[in-house]
């Protein structure tokens, strides 16, 4: 048998969190290897809606999200492509006075985090966004939020890491992980063998089994957002949009296609998902009242992905409570794309300096120790409509 590949840090999962961690580790001169079971950024990091937004996140995530905002601002230099990233603004629409009041309250509590939210009443909304449907009574605009193409951005993080010397392997299915008291020992189905001081569990919706193996099960479930894209349409909006209370979100890309999401799909198996009939029909029937230019447009494709959700919709990010050297970064509840690079950076900081410069206390895996673990923690994909709809929708 050939000798194992020795690295300082081994990352499991080639999504945007794992790839960012690998990139920042490589930047700091660490020997790092990244293992991806499928293709880099092929799952929720690559097939998500593409929202790059801070607005709407819980306060607990805003420091990290602000840091991510800075990283995104430097995207081209960092990953070598622009990834179709636009700081076009994120507009959250309200359909009722109650929803508008919720937007006002959010703007109030997030003051001081640097989001610079602008509240727009019905008239102001239409003055700036003439397309807005009559059902919108107002909106909150975060002018520096935006959107990007996840298919291009997420894999590019891995390529950037490789350019800095990181080893990265696709089609590398991890089948065995152990720790012999000195280092982690990791083997893949194709016979690769690694040894590493640090192990980063960035395996997205599939991360729970590794956590469980090290004695810290988490009640993670899978969610499957229903996504849909139209044929190219004349440009009518550049902002990325969402709706207070959830339900639907939409953006238009430079080519003219509108990408919309809303509702939940279902799992075909542990790795593949589809948007369900009901969600597709909801979008097709209801989108035009918020986005009138969509009337008569044609949807050409639908898709879904597999996202990890914890009950409180906060990620698990930081050190293992049971195994020194093990770090977790998963469970981003369908909102990991924007914050992912900062999450990866925080993990890299722990490896390099022992601590993240931004507090990760709210995301500690310890929060699940007080609750008796759900019997038979779900490791596969289980279809679930997430609770608290809309709170952290894109």
């Amino acid at each position, binding site marked *: 048998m050939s000798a194992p590949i020795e690295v300082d840090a081994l990352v499991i999962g080639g999504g945007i969190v794992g790839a960012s961690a690998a990139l920042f580790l490589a930047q700091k001169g660490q020997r790092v290897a990244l293992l991806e079971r499928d293709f880099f950024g092929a799952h929720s990091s690559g097939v998500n809606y593409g929202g790059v937004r801070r607005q709407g996140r819980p306060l607990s995530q805003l420091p990290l999200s602000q840091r991510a905002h800075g990283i995104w601002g430097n995207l081209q230099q960092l990953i070598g492509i622009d990834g179709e990233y636009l700081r076009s603004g994120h507009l959250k629409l309200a359909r009722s006075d109650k929803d508008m009041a919720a937007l006002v309250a959010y703007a109030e509590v997030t003051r001081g985090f640097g989001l610079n939210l602008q509240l727009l009443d019905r008239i102001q909304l239409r003055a700036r966004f003439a397309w807005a449907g009559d059902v919108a009574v107002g909106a909150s605009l975060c002018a520096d939020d935006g959107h990007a193409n996840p298919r291009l951005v997420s894999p590019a993080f891995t390529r950037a890491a490789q350019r800095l010397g990181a080893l990265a392997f696709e089609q590398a299915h991890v089948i065995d992980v152990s720790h012999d008291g000195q280092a982690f020992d990791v083997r893949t189905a194709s016979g690769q063998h690694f040894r590493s001081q640090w192990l980063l569990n960035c395996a997205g919706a599939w991360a729970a089994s590794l956590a469980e193996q090290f004695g810290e099960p988490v009640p993670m479930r899978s969610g499957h957002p229903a996504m849909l894209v139209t044929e190219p349409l004349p440009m009518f909006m550049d902002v990325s949009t969402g709706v207070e209370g959830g339900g639907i979100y939409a953006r238009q890309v430079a080519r003219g296609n509108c990408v919309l999401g809303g509702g939940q799909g279902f799992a*075909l198996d542990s790795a593949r998902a589809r948007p369900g*009939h009901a969600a597709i029909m909801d979008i*097709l029937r209801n989108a035009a009242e918020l986005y009138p230019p969509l009337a008569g447009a*044609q949807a050409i494709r*639908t898709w879904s992905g597999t996202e990890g959700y914890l009950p409180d919709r906060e990620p698990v990010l930081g050190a293992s409570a049971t195994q020194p050297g093990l770090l977790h970064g998963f469970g981003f509840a369908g909102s990991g794309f924007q914050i992912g690079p900062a999450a990866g950076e925080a993990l890299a900081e722990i490896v390099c300096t022992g601590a993240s410069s931004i507090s990760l206390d709210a995301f500690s895996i310890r929060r699940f120790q007080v609750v008796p673990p759900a019997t038979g923690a779900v490791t596969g994909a289980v279809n679930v409509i997430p609770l608290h709809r809309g709170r952290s929708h894109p």
Partner: protein
Amino acid sequence: MKRKDIVIIGAGPAGIRAAQTLVAYGLQPCLIDESLRGGGQIYRRQPDNFKRSPKKLYGFEAGKAVALHSTLDRLAQDIDYRPQTLVWNAENRVLDTLTEGVADQLAYRQLIVATGATDRILPVQGWTLPGVYSLGAAQIALKFQACAIGERVVFAGSGPLLYLVAYQYAKAGAKVLAVLDGAPFSAQTRALPALIRQPLTLAKGVYYRSWLSAHGIPVHQGVQLERIEGEHRVGSVSWRSGQQTHSLDCDAVAFAHALRSETQLADLLGCAFSWSVLNRAWLPTRDSEGRSSVDGVYLAGDGAGILGADAAEMAGELAALTLLADTGHTVDTRRVATLKRKLAAIERFRHGLETAFPFPQDWAARTADNVIICRCEEVTAGDIRQTVAQGHWEINRVKAMCRVGMGRCQGRMCGLAACEIVAQSCGRELSGIGRLRGQAPIKPLPFGLETER
């Protein structure tokens, strides 16, 4: 949502014969078809108020076309026949349909999928110019719209349809300037032993070709269509014969290289697929009696592998008999055996056709970087090669990176050509680069659709 015991999708030769067989056993299937009138593509039926005779429309096939159409006419009152209905999704034994802007759902117990085929397109320089059609589209223009695609038409590509459509155009009075057959005459000679098993079909092929020659229409064999040129629409074609290049002014071109199966629905239904060397494609697996890998789902006709219209009629009947047997009916086992024997014979003939009209193995290698492969997204062969050069080789991955197959047709037109380019440029086997995932809707779906209550 409505419930049906048995649903047949596609009212072409396979679907109609399947429906007829089920009715003969006292059942009332639901027959769904996208077209206004049944018959499928090959026997596409002209609108009611069109008056051209079947003989004029279908030539030698008139008898078969009329027989099929009148079968459907007779059946229509005994079955639940739904024309102009698109099945755009399948999920958990329920079909999503769209009929003239109204969405509905249909639950089934058994399903016969007879989705047919479209042209296999191997793009050349200039193929997106107005005035360029696929062979099948040129034929539909003639049959369903009673118009020719141009006044001075060149037919190019390969496959039996090439000569048939050229013949139909010439018979209809269009000026056919030339037929450019990519297959050399020697290939057709080589194929004779296999083709001779179906003497009637062979005779028709020979007849069309001789008729064209006898009427002064130049037939060039073993030539490569190189480019189609024109400023705003087709002005000329050029082709290569050995070392020589020829060109010809024309105002329309129809081209295709045989047919490809429409497999998206089988994919959404969860059917297992396997690689078909003969079809150079991933096809839903069917056993010799028409069962797919999914319980209760049967496959018939060209949608599960190209065997032609005669085979489709038999496969439709066979799938229906299999379904009947599987659901406890006593069926005519001798008829089943006969159908299986005849289908096996046609399959041997099909191997002969592949020899006679071989796939142009060098197509991908000689396709220049600036040739558009995906016309919806304007992705060129060079764009695909560049993506492959970045290390991508799996077709869905290549799609994600460079948008090939991401447009209106969802790869139905460009997918196979894209796979050929990917395989050629990454040096893998065509079967080793995966297949485009099926994603609903199978065809574009409008916002603001109404829903049947």
